[in-house]
């Protein structure tokens, strides 16, 4: 079957090698537009931030292990929990799932040779890197964000927060938002236009549906955050009055805009995890997903209804009940796409012959934690109960079960699952399963007691708490759990590094996965597919006749496009072959543009607006330089 497609000695394949090869060395990485290399850049960068966020979490837990402890000063604690939140959400989970997994896998799953806008793809990465460095420079200079990740005004305004801490937060996130927006545009067009011939929407892998949902959500959610941050900076830097009650402003405007972004954000965080789960489950259950269309729609529905629930973060602000009920209703019904998926996953596992290897174990853990976090989430749709427990550790427990249990577990499972594809080597199964159990127990121990300690009155974001309120033992258990969890994560890292160098060779398709990435060699060649596959179902790798036909095309030179730096496009709805497009090759401009953009924000931070303007001109200049070289000139 597909094996023939990869005959490396074939002249067409060699030609493709020449056409798609990129400059080696550091310069190659700086100018790369290859979605796989960009994916790896994202992967390692986000892992670094994951480490930072994890250390922050451990410091927080250490401080809270006992009442009245003095491990951290209050201001340090406040910077740490704020940066922990910002890091894990904006610098780890989202760039990891979209940037790393999405970038690497989407083109492979839809049978394309790259993303629709490769240079813009590189730009998203460099902007993201800039935003991360920007925020962390603040932290290391002792000006870490310190008003909580949702940064409520007036606490975040200059009067109560004179340092540059919040400016690092706001400007850093504006840059981060631009990066995510560009990435989202890229994913949408890629998924719309670059699908292999025959891959009509109803034959698109569920992972791609998830990425499509995420990208659409980002497109419509991020502007609210951007505007909110602009309002905030205008208020802090030049005294605009959006949030000052005396002059017609309203602190709640910040909250409305922030949550209008940040609740869809929550679904943006978990949706790719759904996508990873729906990739891993069929492979190891050895059957196609149950209720496939329903699951696909569910992923889109979560993203869509997610826009109508924001005010459930504001139930305690004294808004009229008649305003709140709209959001309570949507909050309850947004549960149902998730119940659909949870039952579809479990049913697929039951109906198939599941092989509980590490990736599936992590998905199992994901389902357990996601259900737990989901069920406590339902409770917040009950307005009076929400008002009783919001801003307590009950909430902290809820969203960590979602963000850690439901988003990070699939990420870990996905790391194991696609590790052979990316490296060409197998991970160590025994260690992997051990790492799962450590992480599972650690997560349960860390976050379950938070429910109880919240119900018995512990508010979130306190740097210490008095003895004698019955909170001590739970906090100690949580801290112990967090260290077990850290051990589990380190074991994952060790396993992957060790296997990278001394794992057994994996071959193109170690798990017999259903989607297209398993039809090509591991690691994938620069051009991904020697023959652009023609698809007739959502699990093309299981349609062996199709693959045999593809293999035959190499000889005939059908759909091989080795003449130039090209890939075919297709129609949006039905994946009918449309045209062949020239793909741009490596370019120095994205990284240059990102550099100037970051400098412009630094200048805004230190209030040198004229210089910032100059850097903005340089940004436009780089944009011109970028488009001066056109793809067909490659």
């Amino acid at each position, binding site marked *: 079957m597909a094996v023939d497609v990869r005959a490396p000695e074939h002249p067409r394949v060699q030609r493709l090698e020449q056409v798609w090869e990129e400059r080696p060395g550091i310069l190659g990485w700086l100018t790369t537009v290859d979605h796989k290399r960009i994916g790896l850049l994202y992967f390692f960068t986000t892992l670094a931030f994951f480490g930072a966020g994890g250390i922050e979490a451990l410091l927080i837990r250490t401080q809270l292990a006992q009442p009245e402890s003095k491990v951290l000063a209050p201001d340090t604690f406040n910077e740490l929990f704020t940066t922990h939140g910002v890091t894990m959400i904006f610098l780890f989970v989202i760039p990891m799932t979209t940037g790393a997994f999405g970038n690497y896998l989407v083109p492979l799953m839809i049978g394309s040779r790259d993303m629709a806008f490769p240079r813009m793809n590189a730009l998203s990465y460099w902007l993201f890197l800039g935003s991360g460095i920007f925020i962390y420079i603040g932290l290391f200079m002792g000006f870490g964000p310190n008003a909580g990740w949702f940064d409520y005004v007036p606490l975040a305004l200059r009067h109560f927060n004179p340092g540059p801490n919040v400016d690092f937060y706001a400007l850093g996130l504006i840059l981060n938002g631009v990066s995510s927006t560009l990435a989202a545009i890229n994913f949408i067009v890629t998924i719309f236009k670059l699908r292999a011939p025959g891959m009509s929407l*109803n034959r698109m892998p569920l992972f791609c549906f998830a990425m499509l949902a995420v990208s659409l959500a980002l497109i419509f959610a991020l502007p609210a955050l951007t505007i909110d941050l602009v309002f905030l900076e205008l208020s802090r830097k030049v005294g605009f009055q959006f949030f000052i009650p005396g002059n017609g402003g309203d602190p709640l405007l910040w909250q409305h805009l922030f949550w209008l972004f940040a609740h869809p954000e929550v679904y943006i965080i978990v949706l790719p995890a759904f996508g990873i789960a729906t990739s891993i489950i069929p492979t190891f259950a050895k059957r196609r997903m149950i209720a496939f269309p329903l699951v696909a729609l569910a992923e889109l529905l979560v993203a869509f209804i997610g826009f109508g629930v924001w005010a459930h973060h504001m139930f305690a602000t004294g808004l009229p009940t008649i305003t709140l*009920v709209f959001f*309570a209703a949507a909050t309850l019904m947004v549960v149902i796409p998730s119940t659909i998926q949870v039952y579809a996953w479990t049913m697929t596992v039951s109906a198939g012959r599941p092989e509980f290897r590490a990736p599936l174990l992590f998905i199992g853990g994901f389902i357990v934690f996601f259900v737990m976090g989901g069920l406590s989430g339902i409770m917040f749709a009950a307005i009076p109960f929400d008002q009783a427990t919001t801003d307590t550790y009950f909430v902290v427990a809820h969203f960590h079960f979602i963000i850690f249990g439901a988003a990070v577990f699939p990420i870990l499972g996905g790391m194991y699952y696609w590790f052979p594809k990316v490296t060409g080597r197998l991970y160590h199964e025994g260690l992997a399963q051990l790492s799962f159990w450590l992480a599972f127990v650690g997560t349960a121990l860390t976050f379950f007691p938070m429910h109880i300690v919240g119900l018995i009155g512990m508010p979130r974001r306190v740097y210490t708490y008095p003895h004698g309120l019955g909170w001590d033992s739970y906090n100690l258990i949580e801290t112990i759990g967090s260290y077990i969890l850290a051990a589990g994560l380190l074991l994952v890292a060790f396993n992957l590094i060790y296997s990278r160098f001394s794992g057994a060779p994996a071959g193109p398709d170690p798990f017999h996965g259903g989607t297209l990435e398993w039809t090509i060699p591991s690691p994938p060649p620069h051009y991904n597919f020697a023959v652009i596959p023609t698809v007739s179902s959502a699990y093309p790798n299981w349609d062996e006749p199709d693959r045999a036909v593809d293999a035959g095309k190499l000889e005939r030179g059908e759909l091989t496009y080795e003449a130039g730096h090209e890939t075919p496009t297709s129609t949006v709805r039905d*994946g009918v072959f449309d045209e062949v497009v020239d793909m741009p090759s490596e370019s120095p401009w994205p990284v240059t543009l990102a550099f100037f953009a970051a400098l412009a924000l630094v200048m805004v931070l230190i209030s040198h607006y004229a210089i910032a303007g100059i850097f903005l001109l340089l940004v436009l200049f780089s944009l011109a330089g970028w488009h001066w070289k056109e793809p067909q000139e490659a």
Partner: protein
Amino acid sequence: MSVARQSKGVEFLQWFGLLGAAIVWTAQLIVGFGVTVADCSVAGAGWNIDVDTWQIVLMAIGVPLAVVSEVAALLIFSETRGLHHNDPPPWGRRHFFAAAAVWGNLLFIAIILLSGIGAIYNTPCQGS
């Protein structure tokens, strides 16, 4: 009626069945939420807005429209009964979306009803 025209109609039915209810709910949320905010704020207080009437009207328009889009989905679904969701487009795709939308639209109908009822049965502008 030419085949092209007919397929255009079918195409519209499929997309309306998929998106109709969602759009209706979006409209209800924006208007319904906006009205409550306006009525319960400093300036709006003077405009004596009758929130309940607004909500009833919104439901009276929204629910039927959502039901229509559910019907559209059902029509396509019955039209494509027997197809597999991986069958060749356009019919395979129409079946795919209809099969899902038939259930998805129920959510929007539920949300529209619950929001409306909640807004009507609670006391206007009473802090919560």
